[in-house]
């Protein structure tokens, strides 16, 4: 049942990766490369090389052998480089050299990318930069031949940065508060920041369930959906029905607590049956619950509007004052000139406040008995129960509180978009939120912020990769590759840094003096 480490694997990652080619054996190396090429052709050959399209109804094959050749070539050359530089390197080349080479390449790549973006504006600079970054990262990753345990330990870089940790948080907060008024910040950036903060909030909410209580929840998006639909339905149909139209400007503020409450109830409802489950089974059942809620939203046409969703969801108001261009509007009331940006900035502060509340509550809860019980549950459920902790209540509160923040975020999402539909709440959304939490480091609050900025920022960056269009083939669209990148990132993080970007964990209880805890000493996801 448990993933028993095998005796053959005692070297950790290195033995797992090292192929059986002895040093200097050209023939074996050639065979290994040939096999690599064969496998790569098997993988890319049919799916990439032969595209089944239906230009005039019937399916026909469109051949793209050049693309296959490129892909297979990249894989084979990459493996050859790994052989020469990493696995069978000459004795005078130490892993640290490769690591530095990787870091150097990545640095050069970054410089080239920035030059290309802002100074020279030549696509080739950008391209060289991106490939430098990728190659550098690859060398850096593949040179780490520590054991699985060492991989979780903080890197020298992290050790250097970590004392600055508390300042990073404060700095980020100050930047976040001042952001809309920094010169040069336009609507697009504020919109992006709103999106990032939404994911920060979702990440923090999920972090309570996964990072603190150790219960892997793959259906978190369900609570996001509950919050969004609660606001959409109440504000468009039921509030006008019960209280008349006058209530609409206040709807968001009235529904917000209700949405949290509904989501928390759903957290309890869905949490209750899965109390006995742990680990993989728990993950799959939560996934099933998430899908059930989405399917019901699609099919319960009379109530939810089905796949069309609900449109004309009321926009938020400044505590009852709408952001409109008339004498009752926000601008006129406060003697400002009207600008559509005012609403965006207000939304930005709303989500910033909601996210900070999430963080504050989580930090406080960690110091309360219930927070300690969560962490105890994550470390060892059986020991936890033996010591008299009520695991039922502990699990249910984790689900409910995590869900509540998901519900808040959902309400915010609905009022920002002005439109909700089941399409926004697919499994991929759960996977992205989970990826953010995992990338940041399960259980780390600041890690979630960093990861959300990286992931959502990277998503946005894919839109800006115009230079790739210039050097790649006709009709190349970088945005198509966003989810692929998320998937690759999830695999790479698990291989390279299973504890996430931020490897430090704050102990929730300590004697006399607070010491940093390496994430490796924290059990994760046994629940």
């Amino acid at each position, binding site marked *: 049942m448990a993933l028993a480490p095998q005796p053959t694997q005692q070297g950790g990652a290195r033995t797992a990766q090292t192929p059986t080619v002895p040093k200097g054996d050209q023939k074996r190396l050639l065979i290994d490369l040939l096999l690599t090429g064969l496998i790569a052709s098997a993988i890319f050959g049919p799916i990439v090389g032969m595209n089944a399209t239906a230009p005039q109804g019937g399916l026909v094959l469109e051949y793209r052998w050049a693309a296959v050749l490129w892909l297979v070539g990249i894989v084979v050359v990459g493996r050859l480089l790994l052989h020469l530089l990493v696995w069978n390197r000459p004795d005078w080349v130490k892993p640290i050299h490769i690591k530095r080479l990787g870091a150097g390449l990545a640095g050069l790549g970054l410089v080239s990318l920035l030059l290309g973006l802002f100074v020279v504006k030549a696509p080739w600079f950008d391209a060289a930069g991106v490939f430098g970054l990728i190659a550098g990262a690859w060398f850096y990753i593949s040179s780490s031949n520590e054991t699985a345990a060492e991989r979780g330990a903080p890197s020298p870089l992290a050790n250097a940065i970590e004392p600055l940790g508390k300042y990073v948080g404060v700095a980020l907060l100050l930047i976040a508060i001042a952001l809309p008024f920094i010169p040069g910040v336009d609507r697009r950036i504020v919109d992006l920041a709103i999106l990032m903060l939404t994911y920060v909030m979702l990440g923090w909410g999920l972090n309570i369930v996964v990072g603190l209580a150790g219960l892997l929840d793959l259906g978190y998006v369900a609570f996001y959906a509950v919050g969004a639909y609660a606001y959409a339905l109440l504000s468009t149909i039921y509030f006008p029905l019960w209280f008349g139209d006058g209530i609409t400007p206040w709807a968001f503020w009235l529904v917000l607590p209700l949405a949290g409450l509904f989501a928390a109830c759903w957290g309890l409802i869905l949490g209750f049956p899965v109390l006995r489950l742990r680990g993989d089974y728990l*993950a799959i059942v939560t996934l099933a619950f998430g899908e059930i809620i989405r399917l019901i939203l699609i099919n319960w046409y009379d109530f939810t509007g089905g796949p069309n969703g609900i449109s004309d969801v009321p926009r938020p108001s400044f505590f009852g004052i709408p952001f409109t261009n008339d004498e009752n509007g926000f601008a006129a009331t406060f003697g400002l000139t009207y600008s559509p940006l005012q609403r965006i900035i207000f939304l930005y502060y709303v989500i910033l406040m909601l996210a900070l509340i999430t963080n504050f509550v989580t930090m406080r809860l960690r110091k309360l008995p219930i927070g300690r019980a969560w962490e105890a549950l994550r470390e060892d459920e059986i020991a936890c129960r033996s010591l008299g902790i009520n695991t039922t209540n502990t699990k249910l509160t984790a689900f409910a509180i995590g869900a509540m923040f998901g519900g808040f975020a959902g309400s915010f999402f609905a009022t920002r978009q002005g439109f909700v539909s089941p399409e926004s709440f697919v499994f991929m959304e759960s996977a992205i939120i989970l990826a953010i939490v995992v990338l940041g480091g399960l259980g780390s609050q600041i890690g979630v912020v960093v990861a959300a900025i990286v992931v959502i920022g990277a998503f946005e960056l894919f839109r800006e990769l115009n230079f790739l269009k210039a050097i790649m083939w006709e009709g190349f669209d970088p945005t198509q590759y966003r989810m692929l990148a998320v998937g690759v990132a999830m695999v790479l993080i698990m291989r390279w840094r299973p504890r996430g970007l931020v490897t430090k964990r704050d102990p929730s209880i300590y004697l006399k003096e607070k010491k940093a805890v390496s994430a490796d000493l924290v059990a994760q996801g046994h629940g």
Partner: protein
Amino acid sequence: MEYFLEQLINGITLGSIYGLIAIGYTMVYGIIGMINFAHGDIFMIGAMISLIAILALGLTASASFALLLLALILVLAIAMILASAFNWTVERVAYRPLRGSFRLAPLISAIGMSIVLQEFARIAQGGRPKPMQPLLSGGFELMHRTTEAGDFIVRISTIQIIVIVTTLALMALFTALITRTSLGRAQRSCEQDMKMASLLGIDVNKTISITFVMGASLAAVAGLMFFLRYGVIDFYIGFVAGVKAFTAAVLGGIGSIPGAMLGGLVIGLIEVFWSAYFSVEYKDVAAFAMLAVVLIFLPQGLLGKPEVEKV
């Protein structure tokens, strides 16, 4: 009655497909204790490759039956080999380096791999569903009754016969492989105690790789059968089919191959009868609810052994 029989046949056909996928889940879970979340997508890749191979060979319904059957066997072989290459690579790249890591690491990596496979297929082959004219038509009438309300006919189509026969043949083959050969012995020993098996000279890594290859080749068979039966595939079919097949694996008792087949049949029948007698819209809800109910109330499955945790 006729309607019931018709649905029964449909259910058994669908159940066979789920069962074939479920075997891959159950074997991998049995041996390394992880859910190969990407397995459903291997099924999708198998279906895609079958479609491409059929197009590349230029098969059409006008060819003679014998020729078509031979060509389909060739397509099957291609799909099995290529899908195996996919699953082998997935294991090599995403799971093997994580053995001995914390418990959820392989699952998260598997979710990542599932996204990668789906997106790979979507980018390379486009997001639209790929429909195709049925290759094999025809079938047999099992029952024909004329009443004043009209004619009642129970038919079994050639494709359904092929699906059921292939499944039975493969089940027999794999059961023999597991129970009779040294490879099967190695697999069973790894399932019981990996460390002890490796001490006794079994190459654990190789055995695990072969398990993935076997699972993938069965998923590829399921992919071809699914494509022949339903005639339309897209990059997303792996997700739902994967979840249902996993339900089947758990229902049958995880780690048990006959259990996986039995579970697959039960899930297939439930899905078909649910759609036939209740509502088509909620058939996936029924499947997901079934998964939750089975995991919560029957985690050891029908043919599995209860799991005892030692402290």
